[in-house]
Structures are given as structure tokens and as C-alpha cells.
């Protein structure tokens, strides 16, 4: 959590501009600094965060895995790792199957790659003599195997899942870390080539600066000191984004910095409740509480799903209790043991249905309707032009926002109207604009970056027709249900039994929230109470450990269970910080179980004593035979450090007293991920989709599993990379970002005069050297071009943009804030018009933090000339529909 940053001895902020984008949380970085911590900012640009850091390390955008991999190599080769922590709390000692082959062996590929399907078969990444399921990420990878195994088990054991059956033994380990196939030795070999020279060549960071970072990080890690990492979308928004964070996780685990005060890896979320929108997701592939959405496997029922997606050991072994309670919350009395608690009502995945696949489906005419709630894809999503083209093929579009954002008006005044690519009279999309209430105008909760739920009460009633999202969703559902109950749209008799069956999932929903006032606003607290859950008597639950898989409990999101304990809105607690300790456990409520630092059992040594007094957080109290400390212990309260599970134990009982990572099937933190990832068990440096440099580390240029093939489209052309013919047409590296003064795609800031005046126009940032090279004038105009589009921006020439020497040549980077669009008080071209749709395979996030571009002086052409300019670049670079799509 952010307050815990004050306890850090060193803070590395990388892939994040925390001071600008999270200024309130940044106070804790300043507090740490005041207490003597070193603050390092690793970022392509010198930002407001760099201004307050002790050391700013400029690096090439898109090269962070090489940089972090270099630190890992330093830690391993200089024996700087925290051995006792690593041996006991991570899977360093676990032996991996002999079928595994590393990028070392396959020149940039891991074993199991299928070039035809552009994906990996993860079977060869498994533990020897054991098979483990991931705690998060891709849990459907081995569905057939696991479901089959479950059916064998069921045949012998009936409903008692996992408690015997096919025995999955403990994995083979070597605590000396000497076995050549143990994770630790694999790591050593894997990262050996990430040398300081490679860091210099790939990242453009001189060895001495790199060495300084290595010293600060390792010198501030160990029993008595901790280093924290902070990242944001500067790490995630890459075609290999998930592996950026994995690299940091490996480093922090080797240094023993996870689960300890002043340690950890803080993911700063980009919007007030983005954490909440993954906990109770707006994502296509998750159910509340990170339960995977079922795939469309033949005949998959509740038992098969639980067997395939759950674990035998650790807290995911209770998946059935979490899922059945969710189904009870949604379908109430209709969910019975006989119908698998309505498991069949859940939608099934047939593949990726991310926002980008949805756009392609719109273009293909398959997706006919679109709701936009507080989302402005015509500005905020990668390849914004493709977003607008997609919306022009819809039958209907509903936009709920504060103002007439670009996504609501593209059909009459969007950029494609100006270029002649679209004509208003040709567009059949019916656009509905519905004004939305602001957070001050409604009750509800925010879940912050640190899993903290904070309740906000309505301060004023929304003006005019503006309504809350809750109001809209509730009444839309109510009206749809009324229409279905009356036999379909218009109340006509249903054509047959099948249609009625099809409607049951909607008609059986519990949809009876109390409302109040003239507008019939639903009670937000009633929704919170349902999320919290209740028992068979209707009394609120207080902990997810009370959840049952027999239908006797209901809970809308198992990790939120306890937020309404005792019938009290715990998220509304506001005891001031000055009246409690730094953990501030009585301010709001954090999931799970109001615990503020996850995996905090790791803050004590294997014997249960704090690693040092200075870094004490939770510890084993021998007298009381219980875990205690400053935070809520993230461990079974009475489980002694000496506890070792008996043979055949399952669930939480299968974890020993030295297994702090209780969500993992083996209780250990995964340096090597045997399951859960689609692009490798270890991170490897791959270059961005569009990049002017070849990959120096492997023959494999880009992440072979990245998602590009579904997005081949004339409006989404990729560029030649790394010295391939034509790549010199795009010699610079662009990176997009936010400013303090504006918010994401601008819907909440560009219409507000007080914010608009602070950054009144779209601009780009370039170094004086690049300005001289390209004839760009300060305060003049520049046109920035990629294979997708050309945009114009005012020029801000600044020494804060640092040219780098990469692979022996001078590299200039272009900074492009992405807040703007043509509407509002503060206007400009959308930076996302430049970006391609090319995605990370694990989480389907777009690569907008690093892509190659060209920049030239002057404004972009008007009318069809704009399209022609882009075509000219495409011709010059020899771009075809195949360019950049190779594995």
C-alpha cells in the first residue's frame, strides 16, 4: 500500500510517473525521502517524478526487461540474493521437468511454441513429479488434462474433490539450489546474458549509472532494509507487458522484498476505481474475485469447472465455495444443487473478446450495439481511428458521460469527416447520449490501487437528466426483464419454449434492490450488502472463510466478503490517520479481510520471528500460539511455523508453516511460473511491435505470442522493424503518457476551464537536438507520422527529453501526451491515432508506450492530403498487410 512506501529504504519508480499521475500517493515517497530513503526514477523522460528523485535514469522506451534482467543478473552473479528467504519462500528449489527448454536453448523461444497458432503449450514448463495450477492468469491452459483427471477422481471419490484420488505429490525440490534443473539454476542461466554491456546497448543506460542503481537496490535490501518498486501502465502497455512485471517480481523475490514493510511492487492504477473494475470486473474473461470465466468446453458442468480451474492446495482449493456463493448471490432461490447452482447460466468464452476484438467485430458487422460508460475510445484507445470506424458500423451506440465527448460526436465532426473517409449521411449508427452523474452526485465505493474500498456519499443531487451508472444499469435490467417476462419485445407472445428457456438467466436474476426518491435511485448500500454476502438466515457474513459450496451462503464477490460485516458499511469508516497507527486499519476496508499488506507472513523468518526489529510487521506469538503484529496476518491465525502438512492434506491445510504465499498451490512465490502465462514461464526481452532496433539478445525479434493477427486491417498497418528494409522511415521512438492537469481521454478534464487552462493545447516534447535535426521550432507545429495516421502537435523543446546512445547510434524519443481530441475547451489531435492495435497475449493490453514514428515540422495536411501522407509513408517503408505480423 502507498502509505507503506514511507518505510522503504529505497524506492524505484519505473514505468510510472507517480508524482504527476498519482500526486496524492506521492506524498509517501516524499515522506520516505525525508526519512532518508533513496528515490530512483527510471523513465524515458525526465518528468515531475524525476525532478524529485535522487537519481533519474533515462532509458529507451520498451527496454525495461533488459534493464531489470540486468539487475537480476547482478543479484545472482554477485550473490546479493536473500538466500534464506529465497530457499524457504520461493520456488527456487523446485525442479522443473526435463522437457523444458529455455530461450537460451531455442534462441528466444521457450519449449512448446506452436508457430501456426502463435501460442505455447505450457505442459513442458511444469514441476517435476507434480502439476500445479496458477493462482491467477490463464487457468484454462490444461483444461482437458485437468478435467479428465478430475473425472478419474470423481469416479473414485464422488463429490469429495481433491481429497485423494489421483495423487498429486509435492514437487521435487533441492534446497541446496544446486540441481541443474532447479528454478534457481535455470534463472542463473537465463539471465546470464543480461550483462551491463547489453543493458547499455539495448536500453542506452551507461554502465556506471546502471551500476549505481544495482548498488542502491541491493544495498537497501536484506534483513534490515527493504526496497519498493512502483510501476504503472509504463510497464503494462506493451506486447510483453505482463512479463515486465514478472521481471520485477523475480527481482523483488530474490531480494526478499515481498510481504515486508517498505517492500513490494506497487501497481498504481490509472483511474479512481480501476482496481474495483477488475475485482468486480468489467473484463470479459473474469468473474468477480478473479474466478475465471468458463470457456465453451463441451459438457462442462460445475464440478468439471472447479476441478479444472481450482487447486488442490492453498486457498484456491475453496473455489467451489466462492463460485457457488456467487451463483447464489446472482440467481438466489433459482440456484439449486440439482441445477449446478445455475452454473449453466454463465456465458461461455469462445476466445478473446477484449475491447479490441470487439472493434474488429464491429468492423466485420458482427457487433451491432455498444455501450460506453465513462469511456472515450475515439481518443483513449489504441488506433483511435479504427475505433471510430468500428462505431460507424454499429446499429446503435449508447454514450453515458458528462459531456459530448469525441466518442459521441465522431459521426458529425470527427477527423474522418474532415478527411472525407466518412460522410455523415452514410452512417447508420443511432447514437444515444445520456448524461451521467459524477461521483459527488451519488453513493458508492471506490476501490483504490491498494485494494482499499472507500465509500463516498452523495453530496448533491445530479442536475437535470443526469443519473448514476447504478440507476442506469438497474433500470435497464428492470425494463429488459419486464419485456422478457411479457413475452419478448413489445409484449408479443413468445414464439416458443426455446426462447423462454434462453431468457431464464435474465429472468431468474435477483434484481430487487430498494430504490428511493423521485428518480427511483437504487440503494448502493444494498448492492454492497449483496457483494459482501449473507448466510442462510440472511445475516451478513464477516469472512470468506464462512463461504460454503452447498448453497447455504451467498456472496457477490468472495474477496470483498467482510466489507459489510455486522451489517455495517466498513468501507465508510473514516477514522483519521492521526488517531491510529500507520497501517490505519480503521480507514475504509481493504480486501481480503481488511489486510493491508499481502503475503505478510513473509515479513517473519521461517521460525516466525521478524527478520529484524526495524522491519517487523507480523510474527508468531509462541505464548498465545497465534500470529500477531501490526497488520492482519495473511496466514491461518493459529498455524505454527513448525506445522508440516500430513500426507494427502488439501486446501489450506496442505500449506506448511513456512508457506507464506497462500494463494499459490505450493505456497511458494513463483520465480518461475509453471502455469498461468501464455508467453513463457520467464520474462525475456523482446522488442516492441514497431521498433527501429533489432533484438540484440535473441533471434526472436518480438514476443512470438503477442496478438497481432486478429488485427490485420488496412487501418492498422504495422511497420518494418529493426533494420528491415523500410524501417528507417520511422527512426524515432514515441511514447504516450498523461499529465497531472488532465485525466485519461479528457472527458473529466478538457471540459473544465480550471484544468483546461493549465494545459490548454496538445503538444509533443522533443529534445533540442532532435528539434535541430528535424527543424522543429519551439511553440511551432510538428506532424508525427506512423503507418496508421498522421497527427499534429505544438512543439515543446525541452532538455528533459534526453537523446540516448542505443546500439551505437543516437536515438531520439518523442513524448506525446494522449489526453486530447477535437472537442472540449482544450483541444488537439488524439495521440492514439498513431498507435497500432498489437496486444499482450495474457491481458490483451495495447502497446502504446513504445512505437516507432517519424516527426517533421509544420502542420499536417488537411482533407484527403492527410490520408495521402500516411500512404506515402507506407509506400516508402514498403508496408504490406504481412509487415510486422511474423511470429
Amino acid at each position, binding site marked *: 500500500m502507498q*502509505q507503506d512506501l514511507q518505510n522503504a*529504504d529505497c524506492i524505484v519508480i519505473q514505468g510510472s510517473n507517480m*508524482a*504527476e499521475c498519482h*500526486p496524492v500517493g*506521492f*506524498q509517501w515517497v*516524499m*515522506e520516505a525521502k*525525508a526519512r*532518508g*530513503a*533513496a528515490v530512483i526514477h527510471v523513465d524515458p523522460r*525526465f518528468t*515531475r*517524478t*524525476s*525532478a*524529485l528523485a*535522487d*537519481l*533519474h535514469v*533515462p532509458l529507451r522506451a520498451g527496454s525495461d526487461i533488459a534493464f531489470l534482467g540486468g539487475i537480476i543478473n547482478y543479484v545472482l552473479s*554477485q550473490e546479493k540474493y536473500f538466500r534464506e528467504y529465497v530457499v524457504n519462500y520461493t520456488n527456487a528449489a523446485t525442479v522443473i521437468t526435463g522437457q523444458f527448454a529455455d530461450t537460451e536453448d531455442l534462441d528466444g523461444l521457450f519449449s512448446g511454441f506452436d508457430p501456426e497458432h502463435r501460442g505455447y503449450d505450457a505442459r513442458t514448463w511444469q514441476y517435476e513429479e507434480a502439476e500445479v495450477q496458477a493462482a491467477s492468469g490463464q487457468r484454462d491452459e490444461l483444461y482437458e488434462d485437468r478435467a479428465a483427471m478430475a473425472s478419474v477422481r470423481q469416479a473414485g471419490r464422488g463429490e469429495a474433490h481433491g481429497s485423494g484420488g489421483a495423487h498429486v505429490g509435492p514437487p521435487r525440490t533441492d534446497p541446496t539450489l544446486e540441481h541443474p534443473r532447479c528454478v534457481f539454476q535455470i534463472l542463473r542461466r537465463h539471465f546470464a546474458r543480461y550483462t*551491463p554491456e547489453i543493458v547499455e546497448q539495448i536500453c542506452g543506460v551507461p*554502465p*556506471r549509472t546502471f*551500476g*549505481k542503481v544495482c*548498488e*542502491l537496490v541491493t*544495498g*537497501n535490501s536484506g534483513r*534490515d532494509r527493504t526496497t519498493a518498486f512502483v510501476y504503472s501502465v509504463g510497464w503494462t502497455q506493451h506486447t510483453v507487458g505482463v512479463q515486465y512485471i514478472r521481471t520485477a517480481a523475480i527481482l523483488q523475490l530474490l531480494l526478499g522484498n515481498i510481504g515486508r514493510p517498505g517492500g513490494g511492487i506497487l501497481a498504481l492504477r490509472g483511474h479512481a476505481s480501476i482496481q474495483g473494475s477488475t475485482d468486480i470486473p468489467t473484463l470479459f474473461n473474469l468473474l468477480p474475485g478473479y474466478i475465471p470465466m468458463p470457456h465453451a468446453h463441451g459438457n462442462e458442468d460445475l464440478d468439471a469447472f472447479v476441478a479444472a480451474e481450482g487447486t488442490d492446495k492453498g486457498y484456491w482449493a475453496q473455489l467451489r465455495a466462492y463460485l457457488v456463493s456467487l451463483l447464489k448471490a446472482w440467481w438466489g432461490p433459482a440456484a439449486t444443487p440439482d441445477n449446478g447452482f445455475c452454473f449453466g447460466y454463465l456465458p461461455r468464452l469462445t476466445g478473446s473478446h477484449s475491447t479490441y476484438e470487439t472493434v474488429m467485430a464491429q468492423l466485420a458487422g458482427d457487433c451491432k450495439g455498444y455501450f460506453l460508460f465513462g469511456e472515450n475510445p475515439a481518443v483513449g484507445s489504441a488506433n483511435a481511428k479504427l475505433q471510430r470506424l468500428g462505431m460507424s458500423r454499429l446499429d446503435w451506440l449508447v454514450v453515458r458521460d458528462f459531456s459530448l465527448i469525441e466518442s459521441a460526436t465522431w459521426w458529425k465532426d470527427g477527423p474522418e469527416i474532415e478527411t472525407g473517409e466518412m460522410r455523415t449521411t452514410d452512417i447508420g449508427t443511432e447514437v444515444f447520449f445520456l448524461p451521467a452523474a459524477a461521483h459527488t452526485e451519488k453513493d458508492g465505493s471506490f476501490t483504490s490501487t491498494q485494494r482499499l474500498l472507500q465509500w463516498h456519499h452523495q453530496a448533491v443531487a445530479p442536475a437535470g437528466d443526469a443519473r448514476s451508472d447504478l440507476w442506469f444499469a438497474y433500470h435497464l435490467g428492470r425494463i429488459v426483464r419486464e419485456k422478457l417476462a411479457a413475452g419478448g419485445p413489445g409484449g408479443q407472445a413468445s414464439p416458443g419454449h426455446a426462447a423462454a428457456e434462453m431468457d431464464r438467466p435474465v429472468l431468474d436474476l435477483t434484481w430487487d434492490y430498494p430504490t428511493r426518491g423521485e428518480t427511483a435511485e437504487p440503494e448502493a448500500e444494498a448492492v454492497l450488502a449483496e457483494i459482501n454476502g449473507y448466510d442462510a438466515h440472511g445475516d451478513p457474513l464477516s469472512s470468506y472463510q464462512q463461504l460454503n459450496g452447498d448453497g447455504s451462503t451467498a456472496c457477490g464477490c468472495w474477496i470483498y466478503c467482510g466489507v459489510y460485516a455486522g451489517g455495517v458499511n466498513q468501507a465508510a469508516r473514516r477514522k483519521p*490517520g*492521526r488517531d491510529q497507527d*500507520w497501517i490505519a486499519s480503521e480507514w475504509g476496508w481493504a480486501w481480503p479481510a481488511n489486510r493491508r499488506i499481502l503475503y505478510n507472513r513473509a515479513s517473519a523468518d521461517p521460525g516466525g520471528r521478524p527478520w529484524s526489529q526495524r522491519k517487523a510487521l507480523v510474527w508468531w506469538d509462541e505464548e498465545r500460539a497465534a500470529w500477531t503484529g501490526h497488520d492482519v496476518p495473511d496466514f491461518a491465525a493459529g498455524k505454527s511455523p513448525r506445522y508440516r502438512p500430513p500426507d494427502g492434506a488439501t486446501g489450506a491445510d496442505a500449506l506448511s508453516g513456512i508457506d507464506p504465499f497462500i494463494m499459490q498451490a505450493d505456497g511458494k512465490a513463483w520465480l518461475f511460473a509453471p502455469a498461468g502465462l501464455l508467453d513463457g514461464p520467464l520474462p525475456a526481452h523482446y522488442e516492441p511491435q514497431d521498433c527501429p532496433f533489432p533484438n540484440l539478445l535473441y533471434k526472436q525479434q518480438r514476443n512470438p505470442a503477442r496478438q497481432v493477427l486478429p488485427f490485420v486491417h488496412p487501418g492498422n498497418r504495422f511497420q518494418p522493424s529493426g533494420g528491415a528494409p523500410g524501417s528507417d522511415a520511422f527512426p524515432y521512438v514515441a511514447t504516450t503518457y498523461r*499529465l*497531472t*492537469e488532465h485525466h485519461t481521454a479528457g472527458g473529466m478534464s478538457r471540459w473544465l*476551464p*480550471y*484544468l*483546461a*487552462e*493549465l*494545459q*490548454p*493545447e496538445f503538444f509533443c516534447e522533443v529534445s533540442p*537536438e532532435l528539434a535541430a535535426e528535424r527543424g522543429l521550432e*519551439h*511553440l511551432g507545429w510538428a506532424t508525427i507520422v506512423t503507418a496508421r495516421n498522421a497527427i499534429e502537435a*505544438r512543439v*515543446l523543446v*525541452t*532538455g*528533459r527529453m*534526453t*537523446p540516448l546512445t542505443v546500439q551505437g547510434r543516437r536515438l531520439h524519443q518523442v513524448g506525446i501526451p494522449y489526453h486530447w481530441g477535437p472537442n472540449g*475547451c482544450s483541444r488537439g489531435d488524439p495521440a492514439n491515432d498513431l498507435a497500432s492495435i498489437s496486444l499482450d497475449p495474457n491481458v490483451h493490453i495495447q502497446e502504446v508506450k513504445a512505437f516507432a514514428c517519424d516527426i517533421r515540422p509544420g502542420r499536417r495536411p488537411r482533407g484527403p492530403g492527410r490520408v495521402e501522407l500516411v500512404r506515402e509513408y507506407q509506400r516508402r517503408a514498403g508496408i504490406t498487410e504481412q509487415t510486422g505480423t511474423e511470429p
Partner: protein
Amino acid sequence: MSEGVGGRRRVAPWLPGVRGGRFAGALAGEVDPAAVDGHAGHPPRVGFFTDTSVCIGCKACEVACKEWNRVPEDGLTFTGMSYDNTGGLGADSWRHVAFIEQPAPGGLPRATQPQAQASRDSVDVFALAAGGDGPAEPPAGGQLRWLMSSDVCKHCTHAACLDVCPTGSLFRTEFGTVVVQEDICNGCGYCIPACPYGVIGRRAGDGRAWKCTLCYDRLGDGMEPACAKACPTDSIQFGPLEELRERAAGRLARLHQAGVAGARLYGEDPRDGVGGAGAFFLLLDEPEVYGLPPDPVVTTRDLPSMWRHVAAAAVAVTAAAAASFAADLLGRRLR
């Protein structure tokens, strides 16, 4: 958190009674402006200590000020002056964050004290980081510094704006601050050139003078000013002036100890040209770098002697006029 970076205050010690009558305005030899202006038994003088060494340039102060005081938008102009599109203080900007990009003096600030003591016994100095304790190799173009500072009305001990105001619109409050009463201001504009810092401006289409009130309305309700409340890093600290000066001295000493040689206080000295500012600053470079006058003087300082000269001149002029009139009269009679 026991205390914030600067020890954020949560109560209202500047209100009468809260501090148990421990009146603190009178530093040795220092003028007590509220008493001078007739506020008997007034609460302690309050002000701002703006510690620019922790300012992150978020401009929350500018926005909070405008929101609370309903100050209008000040123009949508892209200035190109780093991230500063406000430009300066005026009728429609009562807080202004300056952004100064410059080469860092003397490389990097030394990391930290505990840092230096970090267990290094086993340190096998990373071969390529030779010379490890010196500053890291600066990137091409040199290590940068980006100074940020939130400027505001100084609420001078000797306030020229107040001296020249003919209507009494500008007045000294019981808190020792200087406030314009917009319902009395007649828009004469005398206060504008009188301010040695260029703080006050006349609002277009309104004609009256406007500036920071140090949130006089909030003070009366026991609340700190909006800008200080919004500041996330406690760069803007509000409180009794005497206490702020102590805090500033401590902070300055710590920075000097940490090797930040350029750190200095600006406006805290009661012996300066305005008798000390009610809003003073910790700067990391010369005041001119931030656009602040290095040696401000209350512009009405020489008024008494000027008036003596004016009076003498007036007598002479009157005499001359009288003589001329007499001569004229005489001339007419002679015709």
C-alpha cells in the same frame, strides 16, 4: 505516519482560545501588523511557508484556490514556458506554479545518510560502477534540475497596496493578512503598481483589484486555506507565522546537512524591505530564477519624505499662482 513531511496541522491553533492565549506575534523587535492596525487581542499572525524543495508542480493549489474563491479562468494560452501555462499572479490567478528547467548544480544530490551506512562489508564493487560513491555518469546533456514553486501574495508586514488604497478596500485582518474587499474597491488601480511583487491585478470586464485573501473566510471557520489543504506533499504549509519560521529553519538546516547548498529562505526575515512576508519560501536557487524580486522594498517606504517634498512644492506653487493671480488682476484693472 506520525507527522507529514512538514508536519501537517489538523487543528486551528490560530483561532483565539485554541492555543490557550499563548500569543506569539511579537518576535524581538518585530512589527505586529494586526496590532498596528488596531486589532486589540487578536489571534496570532498566520501565513504560508512554501517549501519548494518538495513541490511536485501538480498545480492542485491553483485549482483549489480557484474553486474555493470562484476565480475565473485566466485564458487558454499555451506559453511554452515549460509546464507553466498560468504565466504569473494576477486578478485571475492567485496561486501560480513556476517551472524552471536548468542544469543541476554539482551533479546529483547525495543519496542519503542511512544509505551511506548500508551494510557494504561484502561489497564487491560492481566492476563497471567503478568510482561508485561519486555521482553517476550524467546522461548526454547533463543531469537536469526542474524547479517548481508555488507563488502567492506575500501578505507583507509593511503592505504598500494597503497604504495606497484610497477607499479602505484593502485592509489588514486580525490574522495579520491583507485582504481586498471587493464590494468597496472602486477599481482605481493604485495598489497594482504599489505591490513590489506584482501580485495584484485588475480583472478585465470588472475593473476591480483581486488577489489572494489567504482564504479569510476559511480562517474564520477554523479551516486552513484551500491551497494548503489541497497540497499533497505539504509543500504549502499554513499556520502561525512564528511556528512556520521555526519549521522552515529546521528544514533549511536539514537540507544544508544533506548537501543541498543552494537552499535558502526568502521573505522570512522581518528586517527585509517589506518587514518580512506573511507568506515566505524555501527556494533552491536565487529568487530571480523563480521570477521573484531579490530585494523587494515596500514601495511606500519613501512616501513620508516624498510628501514633505510635495508639500514644499505645493506651497511654492500656490504662492506662484497667487502671485500670478494678483498680477493678472492688477493687469486687468490697469486696462
